[in-house]
């Protein structure tokens, strides 16, 4: 199936590093997507909070742009875009709803609602089309000895009947990828707990306390870093980590990566594609930890090899 790529608005702003690392990782894994000409905003939370038809129409305009690429489906890294596009297609299966959406557009969408493109997350495509084994095979610099808390947020697998991917209560897609990268995944209980979403602009107290709880729990389970697949979650956990610290009166200093950044690291992809410098919480201590653990292992292996050689030599000597 030919797939098109929908970057989402935040990929051009707050989540540049996600956009760039996603493209780099996909290229490295041999995944190719068609570019969508002149895509527009999916409407995000504000549109459907105001009106589902408006939200549907903003998504539907993109369906038409996607159709121009000849793709049958579309992938997006952003869970918010994913949810909007998926829900719009889902709701448009109802003819009355589709008619109301079509009425807002310059020209109606394709007649057969089933022919509207299905949306998938990049995560789903990586997991289902590439798989942990192939990812493991691509790793050149394993993330050894570090503990990762995988945070999925609330949008990736809910509602389960629309999303049709992963377990809604205990998703494991990123866990499998992180394990393939060589990291240890902590059994993190708040994987799908909400971070506060877009409430951060108007109500920082809400995002602060919700994100704070997530970060504090991740810390208590010994996580060295948090990974996420969502720009909004990332903003709340990383960019707003200071706000959460103030609200909770705790220091976290917990680096928060996009999962594609860690994949890129483990694959040895160039720094300029991963854009680790864009992270608000300094990832350097984490990177040093990885480096130390790797060095320790290599040293230990070298030591073992030397000992074995010595033993063999001494046996040889004894024999002769």
């Amino acid at each position, binding site marked *: 199936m030919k797939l098109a790529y929908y970057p989402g608005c935040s990929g051009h702003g707050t989540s540049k590093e996600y956009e760039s690392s996603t493209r780099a990782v996909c290229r490295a894994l041999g995944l190719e997507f068609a570019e969508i000409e002149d895509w527009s905003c999916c409407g995000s939370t504000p549109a459907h909070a105001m009106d589902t038809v408006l939200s549907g129409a903003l998504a539907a305009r993109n369906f038409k742009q996607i159709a121009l690429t000849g793709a049958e489906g579309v992938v997006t890294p952003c869970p918010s875009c994913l949810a909007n596009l998926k829900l719009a297609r889902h709701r448009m299966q109802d003819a009355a709803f589709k008619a109301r959406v079509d009425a807002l557009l310059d020209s109606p969408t394709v007649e057969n609602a089933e022919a509207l493109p299905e949306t998938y997350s990049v995560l789903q495509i990586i997991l289902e089309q590439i798989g942990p084994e192939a990812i493991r095979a691509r790793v050149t610099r394993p993330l050894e000895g570090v503990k990762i808390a995988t945070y999925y947020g609330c949008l990736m697998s809910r509602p389960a009947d629309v999303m049709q991917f992963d*377990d809604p*209560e*205990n998703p494991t897609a990123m866990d499998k990828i992180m394990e393939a990268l060589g990291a240890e995944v902590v*059994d993190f*209980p*708040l994987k799908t*707990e909400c971070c506060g979403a877009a409430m951060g602009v108007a109500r920082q107290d809400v995002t602060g306390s919700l994100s704070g709880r997530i970060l504090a*729990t991740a810390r*208590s389970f*010994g996580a060295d870093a948090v990974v996420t697949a969502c720009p909004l979650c990332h903003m709340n956990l990383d960019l707003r980590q200071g706000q959460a610290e103030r609200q909770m009166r705790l220091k976290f200093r917990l680096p928060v990566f996009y999962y594609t950044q860690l994949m890129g690291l483990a694959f040895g992809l160039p720094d300029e594609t991963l854009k680790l410098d864009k992270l608000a919480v300094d990832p350097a201590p984490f990177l040093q930890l990885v480096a130390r653990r790797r060095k320790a292992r290599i040293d230990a292996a070298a030591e073992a090899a030397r000992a074995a050689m010595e033993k063999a030599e001494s046996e040889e000597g004894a024999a002769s």
Partner: protein
Amino acid sequence: MKIGVFVCHCGSNIEATVDTAEVARIALTYPDVAHAEDSMYTCSEPGQDNIVNAIKKYGLDGVVVASCSPRMHEQTFRRTVERAGLNRYMFEMANIREHVSWIGKDREANTNKAAELVRLAVEKLRRDAPLHSKQFDVTKRVLVIGGGVAGIQAALDCADGGIEVVMVERESTIGGKMAKLDKTFPTVDCSSCVLSPKMVDVAQHPKIKLYAYSEVESISGFVGNFTVTIRKKTAYVDWDKCTGCGTCTEKCPARHSPDPFNECVGETTAINIPFPQAIPKKAVIDARYCRKLTTGKCGVCARVCPTGAINYEMKDEIVTEQVGAVVAATGYDLMDWTIMGEYGGGRFPDVITSLQYERMLSANGPTAGHIKRPSDGREPGVVAFIQCVGSRDRSIDRPYCSGFCCMYTAKQAILTRDHMPESRSFVFYMDIRAPGKMYDEFTRRAVEEYGVQYVRGRVSAIQPIRRADGSLGYILRAADTLLGEPVEVEADMVVLAVGIEGAHGAGELAEKLRISYDKYGFFMERHVKLAPVETNTAGVYLAGVCQGAKDIPASVAQGSAAAAKVLSLFSRDKLENDPQIAQVDIKRCVGCGKCVDVCPYGAIKKIDFRGQPKAEVVETVCQGCGVCNATCPQGAIQVSHFTDNQILAEVNALCQF
């Protein structure tokens, strides 16, 4: 033919929305109807007497009663017309209550519909002929499937009544779920103290033959004459020699086998006796964990057995028994709660089921009655109980109430305080269902005397936390709906009152018994109110939770009820068949054999009749389903009282161009 029609008011149940007098008036215009009247309660004694009198007065030779469902009162009125000297099958019913008066309020439409249903009954009755049952012998032995408390009660009552009992239990001991319980509500008395003597009675009763560690393989035949084959599963121990001394279990080196009797709290040996009071007290080898059977190297038990009972070469054995009735008492299992990801789906070590907790509370359990957290063996300070886990939950297709969880949760909360006076307990519930004798008082005691904190609200999620000392805690995210606020509890241990379903394999057994069952594995009784012990298959009865959630006293009562049904069935020397079965018109039959091929019962034989092939129905085997009737191209085989002509007459009465 002279037909009498009686249209019942059923008090106001029918009369409120059907003009019964008008129905009777219309009925008088139907062919062969000689008398028609409406009556207040046709099924009452005066109502029945009225029918008897009318039959005599008007010389009726058939009766139609328009009232409730024939599933309710067909038998009643058949006896009534028999009292008046008619053949009991010269009777038809029109269901104008369940199918008319109770499902709509339009009096005109209802009256018209009722009159038409009477017309159908009249047309059918006009083509009825007197039928006579055939008599056949009864094997006065009963099969009881399942050795839980309901099955034990049924078996003992039957045996005390002088009937031979064959009991089949698939585990290696009888006792069922009750044997796993520590105490019972509302008296908080020791469960095994009550049950053990009854188990011993089963073992010692001269009329009871117990097949433990066995399963029903197949059942054929019909009421009074069932043939049962039973698979005796191999225990790798010759039970005739095993004395239950337990030496093998002490010496067995495979000490890390899961312990199903203890709900996998703790471990046992590959060869084991489930618990000290087991009946029969015999050892069984779990082949999956036995070193000899998996690797070929070991044989310790064979060496230490003082009677030489161990036999690694043993195979399953099939035995056959003849019985006249069957009591199904197969009980329940917990539903698979691990589908509930929000409670960890089994990933959190200190989140356990109530049955596991019960084993923990029990003095003969794996922790010898001490409450310990599986994660670290510590005594929990805060224990939270969550009710309705997998009950009353449509989102996972478990809409029903599991009946007894409210009560045992209260009991377990009380016992928790007894065991650990310093502990605190929280019970999350939606409603408290305690309608038994002394039950509500019992739940109140938990709150008032034992200080158990009840919180009305479902728990949304259990979220573990890692405490500063490295131990696990569990945050329960809930709401107190009475307060109207979200609440949280940090517990050390969580006990889930997991909902129940029919025992695993109940569906397969129901297929063998040819009884109905619902999608949750519960067997269907013949009538929810009037025949709660019988099934749709004559001679098969139900006892205990296999029919639906019930507590111990109700299970025992139903066990006794099933026994009473068996004893009453066996009080006759001969049984009669239902004569509403297939009959072959030998003149019309061309012997093509299609009926023989389609009969689900093998009840039709091909015979040679004066050199011509013909079909013949075995009357005691035929159940009257009519598949043959619908198959025979020339209509030579007809189900009595559901003949082609009767159904055609009904169709023609309804559809006339």
